[in-house]
């Protein structure tokens, strides 16, 4: 068996290889080298990383002491580099290998490898990029752009792997920000598209809000512990320190509010998660992030980076759990918030996904929704289920994104086949068609991402279709695909805690997540029927070719994972299958650094049947509405008959508009919403709101000008007059006195000066007569 103490020592190679690849690719770009070479370097780098991270997982699995929380409570820790001596300790870069990091690192390695290989084919169009100036195909530009993509994704992989393996929070934050940077660069990869540039900025700025909270959390923890090492903070003693810390007391005049430190830390750290994992209310950046190339959407915005936030909560889980009050079976402050936010996000995003037409946007909202599942699971204490879902979801959502990329690629090539013009530059680009330019909610026939332009792809792209189906079944929770087991475990935990243990928030979570599961099946059924079934809706769909082998084989690999991965976490209580498989995932993951152990849930048929029934219902309703006549629903979505409710969902609950109103930065938000006739009432409402805000602002301005400014000016005038008087007194009284003293002194001195003749005999004469006078006076 592999020895963790040996392989753990080489853990630095995992982010090291990808970083080396990044450096080499940068050199290739600088020397104007070949883009294909850069891609090969990137793929080699990530494959080498995976060749370390997968054995690392195997070694962790074989590590001794799993029965008593061994590896989780006494993880393998390596210090790579002492970065900054500080206080009583040092800030290090290092690795902490425990079940969570080992499993996630292996998952990231495998996924990145598949996606990198896929991207070599998907991004090949970039090699024939147009020179912006001349309009001709320019190999130099194309090679540089193709290589740039692989430089960014290699750096991103470094960030993700370094984050996952990090031995302390500050290192985690550093790599976390590297990921944020790469996300920004890759969303804005086609920066010449205004929408992509805007989306990149939006993603960067929105996640920055969460990162600020995260950093504050780190600083509080450093203040408490004098260290940010996970092993220090999350040990039993470390949690005790946090638990017993004096609360932060906020004083509001006479009232005061005491916030327990552990609650504060939990909320701050969770703030980072809300930003990075696109939880409500900071989820708005993720759908826009689909402006990036599709492999990026699969890698960063579905599988890895966005789950880093969930990973962070899982990593800090002992601190979250320790905030639980003494009463058994209750949920603590930060956990309550985590659970509520997760559940709201899961259902809210799932409802939005039912109305979107862009194939990637549906998946983006689906991602937000599934991340909500994980966050909610952590919130109700279903730690193992959350991590399980994190890993299975990464595989099947990456598969779905890559599948959608294959679809888009095919449709786009079909369109080019039809029109015969070049390709590459407007890759993914037609999505930026002017809003409202094609009438209300109608498909832009040139948009290769719009599901209404698809259809019949089942026959044109069979491999893509079958792999996509594997991902879809996994996502919708159909037995026996991976998503079923992980999602079912979350729902079972929520059901158990909510119904049997009577924890209100867990019951609430169960209800919302079950509803979301129905929605998930529904929108995925809608997507599959619109995309793959029925007659082709456009020339693009009619002529779409199956994608290149480099794109299809990763799909197949991921489809195998999406189908089979769930079997590592089958509940042991399930008759037949459970005892046979023995739920190795739970036995591996079910321990915390504090030594706490998660008991396997007693198996119960009710939640499992409920989740299967709900998923099946979702498929059924989806088929009833969209499956019977895909051609008709592509022309007009039947749900549009719902009117206002549908529009509210289509407009994503108008959160962007609300943020726009609050921030008032982008006047286009108003223009877009009164773009069409159908939107008119909403535009009027919005207009009234704007007018109200305007009127209030004007009133405020007048008060400011007349009253506040008046007072300020009055104070200014009074100050000026007083200063004048003061100045006059100073010049004519005080200074005069001073001058008088000097003048008197001067005049006296002028007189006395005459006495000093410089002749020594005069002085002696004066002495003599003075003496005579003195003696005379004395005698008399």
């Amino acid at each position, binding site marked *: 068996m592999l020895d963790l103490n040996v392989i753990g020592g080489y853990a630095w190679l995992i982010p090291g290889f990808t970083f080396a690849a990044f450096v080499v690719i940068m050199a290739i770009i600088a020397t104007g080298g070949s883009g294909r070479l850069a891609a090969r370097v990137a793929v080699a780098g990530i494959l080498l990383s995976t060749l370390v991270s997968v054995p690392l997982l195997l070694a962790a699995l074989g590590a001794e002491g799993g029965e008593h929380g061994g590896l989780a409570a006494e993880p393998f820790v390596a210090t790579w580099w002492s970065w900054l001596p500080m206080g009583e300790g040092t800030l290090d870069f290092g690795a902490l290998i425990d079940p969570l990091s080992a499993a996630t690192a292996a998952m990231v390695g495998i996924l990145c490898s598949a996606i990198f290989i896929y991207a070599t084919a998907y991004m090949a169009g970039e090699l024939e990029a147009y020179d912006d100036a001349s309009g001709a195909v320019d190999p130099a530009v194309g090679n540089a752009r193709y290589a740039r993509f692989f430089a960014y994704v290699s750096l991103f992989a470094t960030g993700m792997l370094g984050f996952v393996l990090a031995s302390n929070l500050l290192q985690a934050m550093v790599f976390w920000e590297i990921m944020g940077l790469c996300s920004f660069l890759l969303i804005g990869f086609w920066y010449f598209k205004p929408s992509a540039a805007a989306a990149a900025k939006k993603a960067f700025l929105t996640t920055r809000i969460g990162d600020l909270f995260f950093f504050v959390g780190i600083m509080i923890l450093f203040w408490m512990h004098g260290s940010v090492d996970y092993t220090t903070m999350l040990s039993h003693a470390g949690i005790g320190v946090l638990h017993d810390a004096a609360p932060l007391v906020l004083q509001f005049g006479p009232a005061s509010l005491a916030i327990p430190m552990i609650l504060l830390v939990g909320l701050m750290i969770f703030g980072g998660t809300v930003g990075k994992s696109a939880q409500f209310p900071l989820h708005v950046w993720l759908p826009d992030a689909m402006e990036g190339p599709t492999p990026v959407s699969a890698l960063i915005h579905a599988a890895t980076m966005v789950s880093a936030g969930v990973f962070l909560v899982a990593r800090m889980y002992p601190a979250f759990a320790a905030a639980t009050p003494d009463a058994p079976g209750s949920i603590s402050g930060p956990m309550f918030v985590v659970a509520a936010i997760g559940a709201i996000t899961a259902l809210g995003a799932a409802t939005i996904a039912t109305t979107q037409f862009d194939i990637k946007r549906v998946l983006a909202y689906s991602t937000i929704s599934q991340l909500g599942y994980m966050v909610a699971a952590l919130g109700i204490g279903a730690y193992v289920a959350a991590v399980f879902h994190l890993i299975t979801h990464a595989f099947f959502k990456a598969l779905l994104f890559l599948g959608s990329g294959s679809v888009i690629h095919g449709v786009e090539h079909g369109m080019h086949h039809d029109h015969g013009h070049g390709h590459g530059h407007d890759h993914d680009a037609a999505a930026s068609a002017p809003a409202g330019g094609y009438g209300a909610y109608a498909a832009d026939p040139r948009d290769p991402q719009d599901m209404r332009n698809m259809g019949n792809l089942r026959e044109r792209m069979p491999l893509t279709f079958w792999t996509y189906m594997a991902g879809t079944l996994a996502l919708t929770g159909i037995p026996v695909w991976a998503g079923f087991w992980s999602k079912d475990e979350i729902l079972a935990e929520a059901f158990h805690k909510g119904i049997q243990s009577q924890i209100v928030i867990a019951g609430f979570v169960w209800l919302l997540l079950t509803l979301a599961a129905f929605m998930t099946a529904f929108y995925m059924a809608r997507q599959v029927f619109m995309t793959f079934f029925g007659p082709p809706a456009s020339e693009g769909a009619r002529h779409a070719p199956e994608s290149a082998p480099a794109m299809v084989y990763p799909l197949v690999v991921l489809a195998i994972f999406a189908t089979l991965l769930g079997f590592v976490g089958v509940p042991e209580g399930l008759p037949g299958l459970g005892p046979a498989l023995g739920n190795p995932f739970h036995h591996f993951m079910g321990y915390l650094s504090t030594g706490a152990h998660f008991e396997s849930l007693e198996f119960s048929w009710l939640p499992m049947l409920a989740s299967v029934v709900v998923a099946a219902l979702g498929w059924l309703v989806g088929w009833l509405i969209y499956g019977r006549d895909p051609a008709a629903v592509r022309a007009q979505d039947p749900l549009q008959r719902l009117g206002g409710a549908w529009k509210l969902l289509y407009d994503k609950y108008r959160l962007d508009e609300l943020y726009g109103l609050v921030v008032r930065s982008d006047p286009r938000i108003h223009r877009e919403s009164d773009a069409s006739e159908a939107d008119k009432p909403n535009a009027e409402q919005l207009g009234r709101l704007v007018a109200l805000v305007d009127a209030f602002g004007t009133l405020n301005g007048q008060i400011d000008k007349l009253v506040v400014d008046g007072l300020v000016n009055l104070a200014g005038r009074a100050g000026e007059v007083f200063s004048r008087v003061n100045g006059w007194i100073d010049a004519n009284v005080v200074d005069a006195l001073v001058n008088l003293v000097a003048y008197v002194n001067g005049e006296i001195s002028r007189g*006395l*000066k*005459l*006495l*000093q*003749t*410089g*002749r*020594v*005999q005069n002085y*002696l*004469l004066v002495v*003599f007569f003075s003496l005579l006078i003195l003696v005379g006076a004395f005698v008399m």
Partner: protein
Amino acid sequence: MPAIPVWWYLMVATGLFSIGLYATLTRRNAVNVLMGVELMLNAVNLNAVALWRYASPTVSATVDGQSVQLLSTLDGQVFAIFVIALAAAEAAVGLALIIAVYRSRRTVELEQLDMLQG
């Protein structure tokens, strides 16, 4: 008691002091001024010794079988010797100063040495 009354000595001393003072205040030449100072010092010496001789208490003692009166202290004489030594030193320093002044100003006329005038 000596036959000559003490005021004789005091008269001589006063005359001597007055001459010295006059010379000091009126002579233009610095050397003459120095001489005047010496006269005043010697007048003081004369005073000191005379007053000692007449004012000092006496004690009775027997010398070679005869009873004699002896002065009990030597104050005046010691005082005079000190002053003489001091005058010698003062004359040396004073003359040296005069030479130094002469070297730099080419004169020892006190009327002209008035650079410290206010």
